[in-house]
């Protein structure tokens, strides 16, 4: 079963990390953001949040990389760091081989045009006093000084691409539902035909059918225009569907990166496995009968991450070494990487799927207290 994938993964052209020597569109190395936590009238720093704690990944030209993980694990912060909406504490972000942190003036403006973001919260991300024509058309005005008429024509095209009619042109965001607002935000991000769109939960607020339209739109844009995406989402079935590779984040670190199909069907990291097991399945019968992996304990505070492997307080496979040593990324048999001691000590999986270990502790989804 796994033989076929074992050989190919590494040289896969879509894999930004391929050894072919080609520069990936986006190259992130050692990215770190530590937020100070301030207290009291003097705003003294009382602690630090390691929101993003040394993250490495690439996004190839025209590739869709999915980024998933627990709430608070640092996904949005990663997106903001890449765009330099906030300054990293450490690490580098290269776009087309150029370090974004070193750019200034015109070059920074260009880089910003090439990278756009669609935000998580469609409510607070749109200016309530601007009409749809203003919001979506603003980039045309700022960058190309287009006349209002030209601008409106462009805006109508973009609205059509995201499934909104031209009659919305003069309406204000308040008059739209959540889903409609998110489509407006996608339209705006598309305006300058960027090379990379960082889409932070772009479909989370949308209904199924509209989600499909937006995902199809992203796939279209990727295929037609070669736009690459960092697709942040928590719906693994959508991420799996749309992405070629997936990166899984836990408490500021990437625990597993690899081919989307492999991650989805043969996870290498215990957290990925738990994440998959938690997805609700759209079938009531299956939901009643299925078993789920129990995650022990509470999610730990990012102020005070656990020693060693930061997942060890909740991991069902934890070994003695796990609370002592931080596991380093090791290659998987399918061309990805995983950071977990199971691969290098104990059962020494050497990058093979977790399923080879046999059964884990599970509980029925619904305790047997019918009626």
């Amino acid at each position, binding site marked *: 079963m796994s033989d076929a994938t074992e050989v190919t993964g590494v040289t896969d052209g879509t894999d930004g990390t391929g050894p072919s020597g080609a520069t990936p569109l986006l190259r992130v190395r050692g990215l770190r953001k530590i937020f100070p936590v301030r207290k009291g009238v003097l705003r003294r720093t009382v602690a630090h949040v390691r929101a993003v704690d040394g993250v490495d990944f690439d996004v190839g030209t025209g590739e869709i990389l999915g980024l998933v993980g627990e*709430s608070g694990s640092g996904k949005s912060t990663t997106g903001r760091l890449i765009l330099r909406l906030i300054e990293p504490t450490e690490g580098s972000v290269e776009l087309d081989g150029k370090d974004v942190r070193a750019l200034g003036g015109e070059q920074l403006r260009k880089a910003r045009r090439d990278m756009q973001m669609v935000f998580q919260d469609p409510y607070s991300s749109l200016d309530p006093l601007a009409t749809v024509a203003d919001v979506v058309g603003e980039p045309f005005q700022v960058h190309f000084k287009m006349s209002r008429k030209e601008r409106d024509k462009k805006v109508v095209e973009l609205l059509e691409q995201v499934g909104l009619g031209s009659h919305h042109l003069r309406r204000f965001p308040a008059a739209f*539902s959540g889903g409609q607002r998110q489509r407006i935000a996608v339209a705006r991000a598309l305006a300058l035909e960027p090379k990379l769109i960082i889409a932070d939960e772009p479909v989370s607020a949308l*209904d199924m059918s*509209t989600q499909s339209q937006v995902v*199809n739109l992203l796939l279209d844009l990727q295929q037609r225009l070669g736009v690459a995406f960092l697709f942040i989402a928590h719906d693994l079935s959508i991420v799996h569907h749309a992405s070629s590779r997936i990166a899984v984040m836990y408490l500021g670190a990437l625990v597993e990166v690899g081919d989307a199909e492999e991650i989805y069907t043969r996870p290498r990291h215990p957290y990925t496995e738990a994440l998959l097991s938690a997805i609700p*399945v*759209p079938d009531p019968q299956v*939901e009643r009968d299925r078993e789920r992996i129990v995650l022990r304990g509470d999610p*730990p505070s990012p102020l005070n991450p656990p020693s060693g492997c930061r997942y060890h307080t909740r991991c069902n496979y934890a070994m003695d070494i796990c609370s002592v040593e931080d596991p380093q990324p090791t290659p998987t048999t399918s061309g990805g990487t995983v950071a977990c001691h199971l691969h290098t000590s104990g059962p020494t999986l050497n990058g093979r799927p977790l399923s080879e270990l046999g059964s884990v502790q599970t509980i029925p989804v619904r305790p047997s207290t019918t009626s």
Partner: protein
Amino acid sequence: MASAAAPGSGVARPLLEVTDLSVAFKGHKEIVTVVDHASFSLRAGETLGIVGESGSGKTVSSLALLGLLPASARVTGSATFDGRQLVNMPARKLRNVRGNDISIIFQEPMTSLDPSFTVGNQLAEAYRNHRGGSKRAATARAAEMLRLVGIPEPQRRLGEYPHNFSGGMRQRVMIAMSLICSPKLLIADEPTTALDVTIQSQILELLKSLQAELGMAMIFVTHDLGVVASVCDQVSVMYAGQVIEQSPIDDFFTRPLHPYSAGLLDSMPQSVAKGERLRMIAGTVPPPSRIPVGCRFNPRCQYAVEACVVTAPDLEATGDGREVRCIRHAELSLEISR
């Protein structure tokens, strides 16, 4: 599953019965009806899912129940909760119902928490507003609620401001806030949309266990059909301001009655191979000011016939506990195979 015989209700009288609820907004020139004669009901301890296209009126109908719409909204129809009429109930009485008997979790976590007060302050106030008691007791209750929704170090977190929390954490705070007075009915509008699946499944389990414990009923507005399958007993589907189907979930997932319901089920990624274009319902939902004549779904319906552009179908009971608004429902067979 849902208690068919709800605790404490000798007769199976619904806890909430919504009949012909309509909501219209006064615009610049015209009056626009965005919810049109919506009817649904639920019993104590039961969970009703409301699904439907974005803009179909799910949020507006939930807000209408609690008198939370802006003054430009006109609400008509009836919504009886525990024998009391909610529509046009005086503001003071309604405030008492709200938070005490009925709680709501909003769709937008950022805008529903006040950025200038600590989370602990807001939670404790929510409790004291309805239940009184000392500040100290309320703060202890607040910490307990934060722990219940899975926020680490609840004591310390009480003293922090909303902007220090991630999107998902803010939503968990909202959930804690809405449950702090142990309501009889919880209306949750996309409560887990901002959450990752492990926390989502913990919150869903939490809501289910609180429901079993308190006999709390829930209305779950969501577009996640997986969530519907895992927590709901009944599902109501809305399209362009109308309820177009209400069914028990098992029937809904295997044998939807309305072509729009079938289209929704078909648009899930599970229906196609990886990387393929997802199926979707062609076209877009009409704006409330341009509702088509006849069946509102007719411009997008692959089963539309001539009669569909003439006659506006009523919501009809099918006799087996389901309701549907489609003139062809008896002849169509929309089985879902996956």
